[in-house]
């Protein structure tokens, strides 16, 4: 049994003109001590998955279907009190996007971490929570004496580390990192990615890493899911995805992404723009931009099928049945 199983999750946002199907039937597993990478362009539903898992959606967002199985319970069905008691931070925690601005600038970093601990574990004394914060800072590689500073006194990399420390405050099984290294410099980015790998091994932590950058996923994850238009286009083992990409979108993304030491080629872009999820096309969402589009693609939405062991793809090209 995997640590987390997401089964046919559907999360929609209600706006004046109707429903935006931000996540539309997504399924994946996260194994203990492994990292799953969620890759996709802006607006493909990556962050909505993260906020759905913790049920911290904005007020117009709602989970309309599917199950999120974690520790034998379905998170979708829990009450707000149960979520706070068992799931948020103690089970699953989230490192928000944009570490630069995710902290309160007028409250000391130590008080913010203590607050996070005390909200989720009301029995913990302030003194004890502070000691735990010191240990967490050591764990993520920041000098604990910096706890008494404000976040604006931290550099970008230190802020990201402090955010990770806060996410680990209540010993979660799963940590979701939403764009953990965007807006960081190359060297600092490498430091943060290294930290994530170390934490995964040392704490046997499961990670969900959300990024638009394929190379970051290749560096940190065992599995990857490529998202497009609120659906998973392809998912599987990281080697399968990178060495044998099957979905035309995955192939396109890899072609658009230069490796620093790879052969110098002309980059290939994918023509067109992502679909409008308010009036999404009936068939495959990628049809308009796909160079292999067939008549069937416009009418029938392809199902995610297993083409080889642990390698799933949703494309009519690979649907042999």
């Amino acid at each position, binding site marked *: 049994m995997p640590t987390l199983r997401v089964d046919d999750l559907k999360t929609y946002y209600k706006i004046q003109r109707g429903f935006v199907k931000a996540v539309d039937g997504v399924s994946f597993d996260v194994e203990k001590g492994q990292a799953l990478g969620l890759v996709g362009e802006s607006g493909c539903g990556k962050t909505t998955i993260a906020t759905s898992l913790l049920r911290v959606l904005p007020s117009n967002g709602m989970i309309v279907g599917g199950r999120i199985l974690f520790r034998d319970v379905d998170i979708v069905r829990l009450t707000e009190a149960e979520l706070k008691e068992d799931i948020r931070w103690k089970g699953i925690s989230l490192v928000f996007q944009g570490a630069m601005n995710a902290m309160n600038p007028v409250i000391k970093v130590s008080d913010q971490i203590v607050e996070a601990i005390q909200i989720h574990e009301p029995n913990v004394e302030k003194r004890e929570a502070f000691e735990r914060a010191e240990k967490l800072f050591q764990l993520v590689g920041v000098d604990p004496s910096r706890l008494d500073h404000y976040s604006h006194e931290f550099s970008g990399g230190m802020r990201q580390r402090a955010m990770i420390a806060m996410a680990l405050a209540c010993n979660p099984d799963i940590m979701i990192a939403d764009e953990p290294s965007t807006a960081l*410099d190359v*060297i600092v980015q*490498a430091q943060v990615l290294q930290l994530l790998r170390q934490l995964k091994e040392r704490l046997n932590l499961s990670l969900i890493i959300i990024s638009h950058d394929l190379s970051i996923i290749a560096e940190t994850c065992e599995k990857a899911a490529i998202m497009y238009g609120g659906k998973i286009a392809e998912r599987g083992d990281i080697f399968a995805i*990178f060495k044998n990409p099957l979905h035309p979108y995955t192939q396109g*993304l890899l072609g658009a992404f230069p490796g620093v030491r790879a052969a110098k080629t002309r*980059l290939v*872009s994918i023509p067109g723009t992502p679909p409008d999820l308010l009036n999404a096309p009936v068939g495959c969402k990628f049809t308009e931009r796909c160079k292999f589009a067939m008549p069937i693609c416009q009418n029938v939405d392809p199902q995610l099928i297993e083409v080889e062991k642990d390698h799933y793809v949703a494309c009519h090209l690979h649907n042999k049945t």
Partner: protein
Amino acid sequence: MTETLLKVNDLKKWFPVRTGFVKSLVGGEKLFVRAVDGISFDVNAREIYGLAGESGSGKTTTGRLILRLIEPTAGRVYYKDKDITKLTPKEFKPYRRKMQIIFQDPYESLNPRMTIGTIVSEPLHVQKICKNEREVEERVATALEEVQLTPPEEFVFRYPHEVSGGQRQRIAIARALVLKPDFMVADEPVSMLDVSIRAEVLNLMVDLVEKHNVSFLYVTHDLALARHLCNRIAIMYLGKIVERGFTEDIIYEPLHPYTRALMAAVPVPDPESKRAEVVIKGEIPSPINPPSGCRFHTRCPQYIGDICRLTEPKLAHVGKDRYVACHLYSEKA
């Protein structure tokens, strides 16, 4: 024989640090942010020259100094052997036609209340180069076609919010291109764009070099992209160039310890490759009081002693068009 289009010589920009009123009365040492601190390089005609570095290294400031969007503290910029740093605004105006810039964020650099036609025609009106409106329209249409926003008549009456991010950036390029410049500064032109549409903007830049003999100064933090675009590159650290030369040479054989660290830290989109190693600790120091001697000595894994701390290394010639500012190499030279 390659023709040098632009030559930058010992360019400096020190921004004064604002101090409090009382402090300013008491006096004392005036502080400066040394954003750009004596850099030299040259850009050939029909070349994409890369300027790479981390945030705070002064690469964007350099781009703006060259176009005199901010005035340099010291140093010279030569455009076709003509010193443009001392020209009055009026004298400089004709040169602005020849030198244009593409900004980083196409969501901020286009006026949301102007139609695309107005945005692209504005430079023509400012420069007063067209005799009549008809000519303006023609040039706008050509510029839009040039950036593959076709048919142009479908775009001229639309507003920026009606088009995608990649198209916005192409509008920004059209706005620069409409004056037929031969030098453009591209300041991180794709960092705000989605991966799948980055390539269209980058390939467009390559096409412009080939078709219109435009040269680019490509300012970036992304070495992988720089490598695919630029023939030569300069690596900046804290307002100084630490290494420059042909991109291929620098990528495959980085000499300066900072360039090496930078190369090792670039993530590779291949799960089989060795995971990025972090050889240096910490982050880029403050440019207000940059470290003495070599500015990298506080983080350098190949620190060789007092010389690094006390003496600033000069940019030394170490190979074909290859310069490194590091005591490891100046010893031998």
